Every structure is written in structure tokens, then in C-alpha cells.
């Protein structure tokens, strides 16, 4: 063997040895995704949580509730099925993750982040949002996971959370509000405070506190049937809550198609699947000469194309690209106050003032001309004195209109049976959503026994 061959062998072996001695970082450094981040400030989570909550409530939740309580008409495809109560647990595998992942997991992360950074204002806002979301969730399903939820990526990883009792969850929600309010009242809001990214209140702590009281008012009112003490507690919360439409808790969507209001998106993408001016509610409003009818509905544009700012039969106020999704509004609290008064004291006169205020504040919000408003109130503003139940039924019937597209309208109907509705199919109108298939498939040990759209009822539904 010639010398140069040995040199070559040595050279080759050297190359192999050098490549062999690669550092660990040679591999680990490339396994970091440059398109994501590992830490974020609270502001960018708050943006997400508010938008996700508004999109989920204004999308799936609003569709289910307003199809079931006949505020809208299911004309074709899935909407037609839901309108006829044809669902299965798989149907709810869109709304459930939007609540549990996009909304609440991100909110839970925000709570932890805010607390770790001593950012009390964010800690307060994030808890109020969590309380509201859980209240909506419990009112749809009853018992749901919370105490062990959102621990999927924490060090005490829980992949299969238990379902908490719905009545107990109401106490948990009230506690969340209390802690939230105390954080918002803290003299030190923290280094980082909510600002423009807070679409709901622009970082106004006072308004967030009022929203917290409004949530608690709902919690008590929902349990106030035959329970004057609860009604009294509701009144106490309302007193600390919204003082006008300017306090309304609502989310206003963006004008870009990627930030569009969910009803607008639905009508744009699925024209004619749902129609509006043919709903039970629309029929009632039309026969009552309700001046809000042309504000809610556009019968001339029921299925086809775009007209003005909106697609399909919803008119501009609720059907535009940047229409609001309302959480709790001043008018609802006026009606709630009327109902709570009737339940707490039975005073029809006091209730009637609040009731009329409810109608008026709703119409003012919607921009009904004063003349038309007064005509309507004159015709519909008198509560019956036959019984408090009759008065409550009338309050609820008007509140139901004011809660157009708001899932609270379905809660209201379930609690009061008003307005009277006839089942579209079968013998019973749904009183709950079914727990989603995913929980039965992937959390079988904890998911409750099979359920239907009518049973088991939510604990306050009696």
C-alpha cells in the first residue's frame, strides 16, 4: 500500500470523527419553531379571549338558542335540523371546544399570567370574563368541568377533568366575580393594564366591576323562582351594576372579513339556511306593530346576496360585518329588576316602571324614534295586576324580544315559560344542549350518563 493511500484513509476517518463529535445543540437548535412564541404579554391574550367569547356566543350558541326558542327559523341544512331538534352529541363538538379551548383555556392562561406578574387589573378582567363564560356554559349544559379543567399543559397535568355539579358551579362563578372585583379594586393595578385591546370596556375598571355585578345578578335571578331571598340578592347586585346603555357589555366586531360578526359570516356563507322574518318572534312583533321589527329583520333580503351592510334577513343592527354581540345589557337588567321586584316584593307598580324602562332602554339602544317608542310603550307598557305570575310572564315576554339573538332569551323562556311557544317537532322544546360527543369519547370515565335535549334539566329549571 502506498503512503498516499494511508493519508487518504486518515483524512476520511478524520472527517467521520469530526462529524461524529457534533454538539447536542446542533440538533436541538433547529427544533425551535420560529413562527410561534413561548411568552406573551397579557394584552394579546385578552384580545383573543374577548373575541373568542363573542364569536362563540354570537355564533353557535346564539344559533342553537334562537333556533330552539324560535327567534329565528331554520330553513335548510343543519339549521333546519336543529330547528326540528334533530341533533346528536357530535353536533356540539364545535361550540364546546370554542368555549373550552379558544375562550376559557386562553382566559385561564391569562389569569395565571396576570397573577404571576402581579397585574391585578388583568387578573380582575380575566376572572370576570371567566365567570361570564362559565355562567353561559352552565346555563347550556348544567354540570360541566371546571375545577379540574384547563390543566392540560400545567405541571399537574390533568387530561381528564371531572364534571362539577351545576349548582355548586354557580357558587364558584360568584366567587370568581368577587375575586375579580377585589382585584379590580386593588390600589395597585399592576405594571401592565388593559387598554385599547379591551374591546368591551377599553380598560375601564369601573365598568368591569359593574359587569361583574350584572353576572351575579343573573346568577341570583336564575335561582329566584319561589325564592324571594335570591330575588332580593339579585336586586342588590343590579343596584351596583349598569346605569345606562353606555355600560353595556358587548363586543363590537371588526370591519375586515377575518374579524366579521358571526351572524354576518353565517348569512354570507350560508344564505337562506336560516330565515328571520318568518320566525315565531317576528310574527309576534309584526302583529304587535313593534317598531323594532324593521330594525331586526329585512324581509326583502331573506336569502339572496348582500344588501347594504348585511347579508340575508337580519338587518343592519345585528347583521352587519361589525355588529355587536351583546353579553349583558342595561335593558336586560331593567327587565331583571322588574322581575326580581315582583318576586321579592310583589310590587307591580314598581315593577311596571322598571319594565317600561326596559322596553325604552332597549329601543333607545336600537335607535327607535321616540314617537314610535312611546306609542309602543303606551300599548304594551301596562303590567297585568291579576297575579305576579301574570306580570312576570308579561315582563319576560317583552324581555324576550329585547334579548334578540342573546342566549339569555332561552334561559328566560326556560325559567318563566314566557312567551308561550309551541314545539316545532315532537312534544317538547329543548331545555338544554347535549354534552358533546368528544367528552363521551375521550372523557368517558367522567362524562355524565347519556342525555337528551330535555333531560336532565339545569338545576334552576323547575
Amino acid at each position, binding site marked *: 500500500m502506498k503512503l498516499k493511500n494511508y493519508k487518504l484513509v486518515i483524512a476520511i476517518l478524520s472527517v467521520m470523527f469530526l462529524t461524529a463529535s457534533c454538539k447536542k445543540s446542533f440538533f*436541538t437548535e433547529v427544533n425551535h419553531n420560529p413562527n410561534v412564541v413561548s411568552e406573551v404579554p397579557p394584552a394579546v391574550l385578552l384580545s383573543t379571549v374577548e373575541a373568542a367569547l363573542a364569536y362563540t356566543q354570537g355564533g353557535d350558541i346564539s344559533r342553537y338558542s334562537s333556533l330552539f326558542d324560535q327567534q329565528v327559523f331554520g330553513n335548510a341544512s343543519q339549521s333546519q335540523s336543529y330547528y326540528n331538534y334533530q341533533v346528536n352529541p357530535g353536533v356540539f363538538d364545535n361550540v364546546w371546544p370554542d368555549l373550552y379551548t379558544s375562550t376559557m383555556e386562553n382566559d385561564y392562561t391569562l389569569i395565571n399570567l396576570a397573577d404571576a406578574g402581579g397585574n391585578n387589573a388583568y387578573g380582575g378582567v380575566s376572572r370576570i370574563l371567566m365567570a361570564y363564560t362559565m355562567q353561559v356554559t352552565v346555563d347550556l349544559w348544567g354540570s360541566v368541568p371546571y375545577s379540574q379543567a384547563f390543566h392540560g399543559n400545567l405541571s399537574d397535568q390533568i387530561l*381528564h377533568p371531572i364534571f362539577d355539579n351545576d349548582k355548586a358551579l354557580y357558587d364558584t362563578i360568584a366567587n370568581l366575580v368577587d375575586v375579580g372585583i377585589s382585584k379590580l379594586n386593588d390600589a395597585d393595578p399592576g405594571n401592565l393594564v388593559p387598554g385599547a385591546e379591551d374591546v368591551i370596556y377599553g380598560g375601564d375598571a369601573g365598568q368591569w366591576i359593574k359587569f361583574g355585578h350584572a353576572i351575579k345578578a343573573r346568577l341570583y335571578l336564575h335561582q329566584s323562582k319561589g325564592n324571594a331571598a335570591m330575588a332580593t340578592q339579585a336586586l342588590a347586585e343590579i343596584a351596583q351594576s349598569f346605569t345606562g346603555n353606555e355600560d353595556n357589555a358587548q363586543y363590537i366586531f371588526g370591519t375586515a372579513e377575518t374579524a366579521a360578526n358571526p351572524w354576518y359570516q353565517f348569512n354570507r356563507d350560508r344564505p337562506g339556511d336560516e330565515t328571520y322574518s318568518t320566525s315565531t318572534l317576528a310574527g309576534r312583533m309584526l302583529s304587535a306593530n313593534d317598531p323594532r321589527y324593521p330594525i331586526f329583520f329585512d324581509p326583502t333580503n331573506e336569502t339572496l346576496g348582500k344588501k347594504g351592510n348585511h347579508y340575508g334577513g337580519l338587518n343592519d343592527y345585528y347583521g352587519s360585518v361589525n355588529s355587536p354581540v351583546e353579553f349583558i345589557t342595561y335593558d336586560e337588567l331593567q327587565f331583571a329588576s322588574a322581575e326580581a321586584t315582583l318576586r321579592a316584593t310583589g310590587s307591580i307598580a314598581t315593577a311596571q316602571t322598571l319594565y317600561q324602562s326596559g322596553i325604552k332602554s332597549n329601543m333607545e339602544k336600537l335607535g327607535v324614534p321616540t314617537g314610535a317608542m312611546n306609542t309602543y310603550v303606551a300599548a304594551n307598557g301596562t303590567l297585568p295586576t291579576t297575579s305576579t305570575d301574570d306580570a312576570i310572564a308579561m315582563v319576560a315576554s317583552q324581555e324576550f324580544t329585547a334579548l334578540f339573538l342573546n342566549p339569555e332569551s332561552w334561559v328566560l323562556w326556560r325559567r318563566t315559560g314566557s312567551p308561550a311557544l309551541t314545539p316545532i317537532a315532537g312534544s317538547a322544546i329543548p331545555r338544554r344542549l347535549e354534552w358533546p*360527543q368528544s367528552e363521551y369519547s375521550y372523557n368517558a370515565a367522567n362524562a355524565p350518563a347519556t342525555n337528551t335535549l330535555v333531560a336532565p334539566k339545569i338545576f334552576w329549571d323547575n
Partner: protein
Amino acid sequence: MAKPILLLLIMIMSFGTLVFAQNREISGTVKDENGNPISGASIIIKGTKLGVAADALGRFTISAKSGQVLEISATNFTTTDFRLEGQNNVDITLKPGTNLMETVVVTALGIKREVRSLGTATQSIGSDELNKSGTGNPLSELQGKASGLTVINSTGDPGGGTYIRLRGVTSITGNNQPLMVVDGVPIDNSINNYDATFNGFSAGGANGQLVGGAQPTNRGVDINPDDIESINVLKGPAATALYGIQAASGAIIITTKKGSGRKGTSIQVNSSVTVDKVSQLPALQDTYSQGSEGLYSPPEDGASTSWGAAIDTLSWDGATDYAFDKHGNIVGKSSPKAKIPVTPYNRYSFFQNGVTYDNSVALSGASASDKSSYRLSLGNLAQTGIIPLSKYNKTNLSIAGQDKITKRLTASSGVTYVHSTNNKIQQGSQLSGAMLGLFRTPPTFDNSNGFSDAANQVSAYELPDGTQRNYRGGGGYDNPYWTVNNNPYLSELDRVLGYGQATYQVLDWLSANYRVGGDVYSQNDKQSYDIGSNASPAGAVYLIGYTNRQFNSDFTLNMHKTFASDWDASLILGQNYFVLNQFNRFSQGTSLVLPGYFDISNATSFLSAETEQRKRTMAFYGEATLNYKKELYLTLTGRRETSSTLPAANNTFFYPSASLAWIFTELPALKNSNVLSFGKLRASFAQVGKDAPLYALTTPFSTASFQDGFTNGITFPINGNAGYQISSATTTIGNPNLKPENTYSYEFGTDLEFFNNRIGLNATAYYSKSTDVIFPVSVPYSSGFAGALLNAATLENKGLELTLSTTPVKTISGVRWDVNFNWSRNINKVTQLYPGFDRIMVGGFGGGEAEIDAVVGQPFGVIYGNTYPRAVAGDLKSPLLISDVKGDPNYAMPIGGGVGPNEIIGNPTPNWIGSAISNLSYKGFVFSFQIDVKNGGDMWNGTRGALANKGTAGETSNRGAPALFKGLLGHLDDNGDVVHYAPDGVTELPGPGAANTIASTYNQFYWQNVGNSFGGPQEIDVENAGYTRIRQASLTYNFAKNLFGKNHFTNLSVTIFANNLKIWTKYDGVDPETSLGGPANDQGLDYFNNPGTKSYGVRLNLGL
């Protein structure tokens, strides 16, 4: 090196030259039966293991003594012995490799080995068996050519994807397709896709999980079949263990042509023209109009269904100003306005004949000094599809060459450039899918508006005001002519593949080889929806760019020694480095201002995104082979690999393989038998690993975006505010403790040749078990996430593969008939998922409906969906429950409406697949055909379900016919339990009642809610998608070389051929070889998939 062309071309010969000085120099040539030189043929002095390789002209010189025997072998030729009797010049003719066992194939890492020495199953496909179909798709050419190989064309669309799988599934969410290797370099076979209507962005995924969008292409189709010399299919882990993690699902080893080797220049021209027709379509009814409940409803009312009046009761009124029909409005026959009786429109007229021109020309030759050779080829495929405006145009330019630089140093390289443009058609579950709009069209609506070339007539699909002309007054689903014109999807590809290789013969027994190769491409897709498209009413433009860059480097030391005279050993030691970089850029512009102007600057709302994927692996490997008397062959391999995708603590792993081949016919007692000419038993064991998905170790924050299944949803930023999320409905929790996946397998086989190779039989049985399979375990969303990435699953595969090669007729007069059969059966079982989980979704629609799932105890990829309520809840074998609820429209029918449980409703995996390939030749004629059989295997025919619901399915013309549904009377009570009514019709008694005897009717309610999977349970639309088909038939005539007196050409042949000439199947949708999810793991769904094709063509091959 004076010739410029040689600057481009360098050469390699695998084992360099060895010259024995003390012997006589003997020179010779190696040729095939046609007199063409065989370059690279190996000439070895028997018993010494000294040898040379033939040059590009088939010439060689070797030092040998008289009386020694030369053993000459070459890929795809029969190895021949030649005894030297004192000649200085020898001419050796090799016969084609009819005796497979004596041929040489390319195994892992480009190592050439005789088939007889292999302890594993491989199957080789020669160039004459490729590009017979004229589709220019090298992967679909593999159909039926090898046992154990599954090939599924997703659609007949030009440029459509092709899914290939060897044996069974070993990974749940990872890639299950074999590694593609071209000239020793792994190449990318990704699916790069953006589904604007459903799933968004997926680049390079194994699971597109598509249900809409345009059919994705896998990048393996870019190779030009005319450039391929041979394809060797390495089936099991033992055969591919040397390749490491990338080949854990087998490997497709492609060797390209390197040069004809004829001195001077030779030219090969291949040219074909193929006409495609639609192969099979769902039946549609022609008797009932648009509308509902027997009443006609005009297009402007927007009804989606065809449950209207009987067409023979309707007339056109002859109005000339009616935008939806040139015959006028539809009125009742008895109306005073009635003028022309309505006749149904032929919706199938939408399809056209597609035409494919496939042309390639190759120049090859060798330098006068014969040290160098080259091949230069140019190929073009120009295809128009059966759907108007679908197109695919692919141009391949390849140069390859080899050069013997010094006596010891040889080098070679090759570069291929591919450019393709593909006009794709929207399909599947989306409002702009072409088939969805087409097949739902009532027979009373003419999508073409009377034009025979409607695709080129704007007034066919647009009203004068520019809004859409379709059967739903502009809403609903797009007119298919609108879709093909106004929803264009153009995919453009530029790709360069190449390698360079050098071998240095360091010592007689030691050579060093280095090979570096790269695969770089950019795919630029532009997808647009015009204003008024139903999938995106405001209009949208999407620009998506994919850049893929991967490099592979292998350094090997090859050692070879003969000990004593009976023992022969070789050892290969190597090092591999692989790097992958993928960059994807995405821009979306929505809400267009001007209609018909598809430029992103025409949009008013914008979104952009990017992804970057980087990966590195490094490995050391070795292969030792030991051969005793050419009777026993032992091969041992080992590979130690490090991958960047795994946590640092677990990122290095080792896997071994061992195989043994025993040629038992070498035993003296069996040698030279006339019956059993050759016999081998083989056994192997291997363990292979797979690494983790990219970036799977952490749970990071990303830009927030959420959808609800009905709308496009919300994507941040909003109004200038950023939004980030740690979770959304699809987020998987990262896992810092992942381990590599592990598959161990063993296989046993035998290769037998009988009656002087007139009959050959190869049989292989295998078993494999994959453990620690990584997948995102679905967790309840209440955990805050959709999944957790875990080493959780265990999968098993066992199977049998048989290949039978026969030559029933072979006469002296030149008649020869070969028939080869391939048969395989794979039984896959998911043996374990994460504790507490019995099912996870692989793809499909989700929500427990029409999904493809992995279920414990079941074969991978079963169809899961909703079922009818039955007498025994959940038992699909128990009788159906027939509603006894009087007054309910469902009365006396199976209970529809999706209230039954969700169950496994089908299995897309066939019982077995087989093929028969026949070649009959006489004089210049060759008649060939190939029959493929897929026995069993289900498909969910969602198309049928939707068409039954909409009332356009052919079977719905039985409306009004009496029906008596079999089953037990009963219904479900409020708790979901099976009950039936007592005779009083009110009292509910537990369990089902008596057998149904109540007559019912096939009415609109039945077809909309019970007898279809659109409003009823999915189980109704699971069909047997097995088939028998004449995949190919062809007749070739080879003209005599002296046709024009002198030999002006080396070969000239004309072939007429047909693909999918005939299909026998029970499947009543489109061609059952289809896949909604594209070339991905989720096979078995059909929902308005674009149809398949049958084709007829003629091909000319000319060599000069």
C-alpha cells in the same frame, strides 16, 4: 474534457477497476439480445472476486488466464458464465432477466446485489413496464406491479395525487408512504396544500385531513417515467433498515437512465397521445323537477332539492327574456302559457374528453475515448382533463453523465429540472366544489344555458348583471362552469433534483464513496374565488408559496474480501447527514373590489402567515455480508441515528437487522434438478425507528384564530390589535419526553424456480409490531386542549405476499406468453391506544360522523359514523328499529335523523389485492394486458347520500313506490332506550316489538331523513368498493430494423393502449379508486370527489 457536454457530466462505476498485471489482457463487449451495449455490467473472474465493470459502450478489459470463468451480471439481466479458452476478444450477450434470482437489483443506499443473495423481499420493475399509461405519473404506473404495494389515484384530475403504501400502516399520524429514493438520494413526496374552505394550511403533511379544496398533488409525481431505468420496491423494514427513519415504511428505489452507451450519439423518442373519458359516474334521476313535495320551484326561489313535479307534467312557456332558461319559464302542461314540453337536461355533458400529449426525447452517447458517457433528455406532458379547464403541463429536463477520471477515481452526476403548471378544480365538501354543484343540479336546469362549449361562454354561468347563474338563483352551490372559470386554482412548480458522486478505489479491497444529493423546489399556488362564489361570496385571492430544500450526504467505505475459496465477506461503513428546510409563505386577500380580477391588490382585507420547518438527522451505519459457497448469505446491518425532532435525552437511537438466505438447491442432492431449478429460503429480522413530528416538545403561543365549523371564523389581528392563543380547537399539548417510535418485524419467504424458470414463485409472510407510536391522543376539550402528543399506540401488521411468474407458451417459432400474478393480503390491527381511549380520528368530517379512525382491536383507518337505532342498541347485526310512532312522518320506516349511536360502519382496507399481467409476443407483435383486483374494502359514498337527500340520485325516482321495511317495531324513548307501543298505542313497553308488517312509501321524507347519510345515518352509504378492472391493455408492433432497407433506426414501435378499459364494481359512485383526503392516511371517503378516467392512446417509440 474538451467537449463542453462533458463538463456537465461525470461518472461513477460502483466498484472501480482492478487490474492484475501478471495475466493476459482480455477485452470484450457485453450486449443485450438486440446488440445494444450494456453499460455498467459487472465482469468478475469466478472464484477470485476480482472484476471490472463494462464502460458506457459495454466494453471492458480484464486480466485473466485461460481456463478461468468470467461471471457477467447486470441489472435486469441474467447472470452468465463465460469460460475463457485463450481468446483475446470476447463478445458476450446477456439474456433479459427472466430468472429473477440471477439478476442484480439496487438495494438500500444504492448497493447493487444479486437477488439470490437477499434475505428480504424485493420486487423490481423495469423501464419497459413503466409509462405504459401515458399519464406521466411514475407512481400510478406502479399499480399492480408488485405484491404488497397499494397504489391509489385520488382522482382522474390532471396532476392529481397518488397514494402508495407498502404492507400495512405503522404510524397513526405520521407518514405511512414509502421513502422515494432517486439515484441514491431521498426525495420529497410531500403534499402541499391549502384548503381555503375547510382546513387551511397544511404543508408536507401525511394527513391532509381534507374534505374540500382542490385535490392535492404529492410531489413524487414530478419524476418523468421515461427517465427511469428501473424501480426496485424494498418492502419490509429489514430491506430498508440501512436507510433509517425515513424508510420505516419501505422504500421505492428509482434508478434513472444514465446513457445508452452507444458510441457517438443515439436518440430515443417516445411520443404518445391519450384521450381520457370519465370512467364512472353516479346515476341521476331525469323524471322529477326542482322543488319540494311534488311542486315545481323555479331557480330564482333558490330551492336546493329536486323533489318537484314530474317533468312530463311540465312545459316551457317559450319566454325569450328568462335568464335561467332559454326555453322560458316552466309552467304546468295544462297552463295556457305552456308551449314546449320540458325535457330533462343531461348533466353529464359537463364532462369532456381530456387529451394528453406525452413527448420525450433523449440524447445519449459516449466520448470517443469511452471514458465518459452522458444522457440528456427532455420530456413534456401536456394534459387537459375531463373537467373543462383542468390542465397539467410538466416539462422535465435531465442531464446525467459519468466519467472515469483516473484508473481509480470515477465520478458521476445527474441533474433534473422540472417545471409544471397545474390548473386544479375545486372539489369535495364545499359550496364551490364542481361535482357538488353539478350532481345536485335538477334535471330541469341547464348549467350550460344551451351552449355546447359552456366553459367558454360567460353567459352560461353569469347573468347579465354579473351575478351567478345557477339553479339556486345565485346562492347555494356554484354552477360548475362558474367554478371552473371563476374559482381558478393554479399550482406552479419549479424543482431541481440532483446528485454528485465519486468513488475512489483506495486499495484492491477497499473503496471510498461519497454522494451528495439535493432536492430543491418551490411550489407557488394561487387560488381565487370570484365575487359571488358561494364558498367565498365576497371573493378571495390566496397566494401560497412552498419552498422545500433538502440535502442528503452519504459517505461510505466499502470493503470486500474473499477468505479461503468458499468464504466471501464484505463490509460497508457509512455516515449519513440529512437536512430539511421548508419555508411556506401565505397571503390571503378577501373582499375583492372588482369582479374577475384575481390580483391580491384587488382585495380589501388581508392576512398573511408563514411557517418554517427545519430538521436535521445524522447517522452512522454499517452492513456486513457473509457468503458461503454462494449457498448461504448472511447480512447484518446496524444504524445509529440522531434526530433533531426528539428531546436531547432521547434523540439518539440504534436499530439492527439481520437476514439469512439459503439457496437450498445448491445442495448436491438438489442441484441440477429439471423440476426445481432454483430454490431459496430466507428469513429476516429488523428493528426500525421513526422520530417525532417537528416542534412537538412544547406548547407555544401562536396567532389566534378560531372557527366553528360553519363560518371562516376569526383570525387576528383585529383592528390593529394582536391576539395570541395557547390553545384552539385543534391544539395539541407538546411533550418534552417523547421517545422514538419503534417497529420490529420478521419475515420468512421462499423463492422458487421450476422447469428452467418457466414458473417462478415468490412467497413472503411477515409480521411487524410498532410500539411507542406517537400520536396526538384526543383529550376532552375540557382539558383546555384537543390532544396530547404521546407515545401511546401499538399497531400490528401481518401479511402474505405471493408472486407467480409463468411462461405457459414458449415456442421455437417465436411465440412467447408470460403471465405474472401478484397477490397480497395485509391484516392490520390497532392493538393499543392510550389507556382509556378506544378511538382516535385520523381524518374525515369529524364529530363522530363520516370519520376515518384508529380504533383499538380494529384495522387502522376504519370508517366511523352514525347508525340506525336497532333492536339491540349498538349491535349492527340486530334488526333495525321500525318506527311505530303513528302520525310521525317517520312511521313504518327505519328511524332516521341521526338519533342512533355512532359506530364503526366500514373498513376501507381490502381483504386482498391482486393483479395478473400478461404479455404475449410473436414476431414483432406484443399483446399485453393487466387485470387488477381489489377484493373488498369499503368506501363511504357521501355523494350518494347527499344526492338522495337532494332528490337528484337515480334511485330517488322510485318516489311514491310502496315499501315494506324489515325490522322490529319500536322507537326510542326520552332516555334514548328502545321501547315499543302496546296495542293501545300509548303505553310504552321496554324493548322492541313485533316484526314490521306496515306498508310504507319511498317518499321525500324517507329519502331526506332515513335512506341517506346526509340527513340520516352514515351507515347507509358505506359500500363495497372492491373492483376488478382491466387496468391496461396494449398492442405493440416492433418494426424490423431494416424496414427501409438499411438499419436507419435501432428500434421503432407503435403501441395502441387503453387504461381502465373496463371496471366491474358494486360501487355506484365515481371510480371506486378515489380518495377525498387525497394521498394521505385517511383513505375511504368519497364526497363529491372529482371522478376517475378511462383512456385510449397510441404511442410511438423510436430509437436512432
